[in-house]
């Protein structure tokens, strides 16, 4: 049995938060794909049936794509995955490295993130 590193667990948990966000926005067909490359866990979340409005896309990017602030991600990580009905996008954005957030009629909505040790 290979133990799941805490940092990988964070990425897995973070993807759950993003899936919850997509469901709240109306997505009903979601793929969550995990891949290890050189010890780094890469996550791709794809929802073919959801196209975000420009406003939602811009807001989502502002919350997720910015210089990662570990002091926020580490401290407030406990809020992610709780029973609270909302999503912890700020925590996700600071605890993982979100590489891209795209949404188009052809591709649906795609979010890529990764978590190094």
């Amino acid at each position, binding site marked *: 049995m290979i133990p799941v590193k805490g940092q990988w667990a964070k990425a897995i948990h973070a993807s759950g938060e993003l899936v919850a966000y997509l469901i709240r926005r109306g997505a009903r067909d979601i793929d969550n794909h995990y891949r290890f490359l050189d010890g780094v866990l890469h996550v791709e979340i794809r929802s073919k049936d959801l196209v975000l409005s420009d406003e939602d896309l811009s807001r989502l990017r502002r*919350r997720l794509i910015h210089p990662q602030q570990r*002091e926020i991600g*580490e*401290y*407030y*990580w*406990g*809020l992610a995955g709780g029973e609270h009905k909302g999503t912890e996008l*700020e925590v996700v954005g600071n605890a993982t490295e979100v590489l891209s957030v795209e949404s188009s009629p052809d591709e649906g909505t795609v979010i890529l993130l990764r978590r190094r040790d």
Partner: protein
Amino acid sequence: MVEEQRKEFRRYWIVASFMFAVAIYGMYLCDGQVDELLAGLTRIITSPSTLITDYVLLGGPSAAFVNAGMLGLSALGVCAVAGVGLTGPAIAAVFTVCGFGFFGKNLFNVWPIIFGVALHSRFKGLPFKDHLLIALFGTSLAPLVSELAFGGHLSPMGNGPFSLVMAVLGGLAVGFFLPPLAKHFLVVHQGYNLYNVGFSCGFLGLVALGTLRALGIPLEGGFYWFHGGHDLFFVPLLLFFSGMIITGFIICPDFRRGLAELYSSSGRLVSDFVQYAGFGPSLVNMGTLGLVGLLYLKFTGGDINGPTIGGLMTLSGFGGFGKHLRNVLPVALGTWFAGAISVWPVNNPGATLAVLFSGCLAPVGGAFGPAAGFAAGFLHLIVVMTVGGIHGGLSLYNNGLSGGIVAAMLLPVLESLREED
């Protein structure tokens, strides 16, 4: 990336300017009497500093402002050395440290706790910056260090090197244990209490007080509260908070869009307004909150002294991290109303501070509506006037402890009512 670094640099300079302004005003107040300033600083540093020790009364206005300004700059320096991005949480931490530099934190008693948190980071093999926010907010327990060093009578020969060693060890110990506790206590209130470290420190303070009592060490310290202060501090504070609004406007002339986005947030942790609404709108919000707090003191006849200036600085500092008028006002109104109908007059020290610090529960109003915010504020006064005794004033964020208790109690009820909707 270069643009981001430029913005970061600018944020550091602007926050540093406000901290410098506090320290320089203190130097101006000493009117060239440096000996008096140094004597005041010595009184501050060697006091037990338990809640409530108003440094304006104890050390004089000049020393209190210099202490607060220098502490704010020190906190900013720690952020810079750790390489932390100066967004909402870090700005709130710097302003909180500066604010409590008027009553309880000084240039001596914060460091053992910060180093204790750094030790924990080293023990866990993590960079210190991961726990920096906890380290800065964790200085809430600074009175424990001062109490052990200057008040606790640890040695029959009186206070001396042994007391200082014990104080440093005590500070290191609470700092070391704080990070896991602070992270854990978040879950209790689900981010609806903005002063989470205060919640955690309240319980640590309870354990520390119990330990001192078990060892037969009596607490020293007392109640210091400067009365009046309007003639001395109202105009400078008016200029200070107006300066924030003007600076925000200069940085971002079109601040209304960012402000609207900021106001649409519930304020629940983690609401980093600086990150997603911008620094300019956040500064406008910070200045507005400070001004409203100042006007509250003016109209209710509350004193403007060390603790209330600390309350204003904290209220303002969290203007980049969860608080805005829409979510703060219902809570503050509830706290004020509880004071108006209770045995605690609205301008008595405890009730005045409770209103200024009630914004810790702002996310309740932001997420569940003004009525819920009002109820949270009402309960806040009742609880905060009761819980101070359990830590004996060893934790400065008494309102944070109360806020955590109120949020933890209200949250399940509010969530269930919302579900039924």
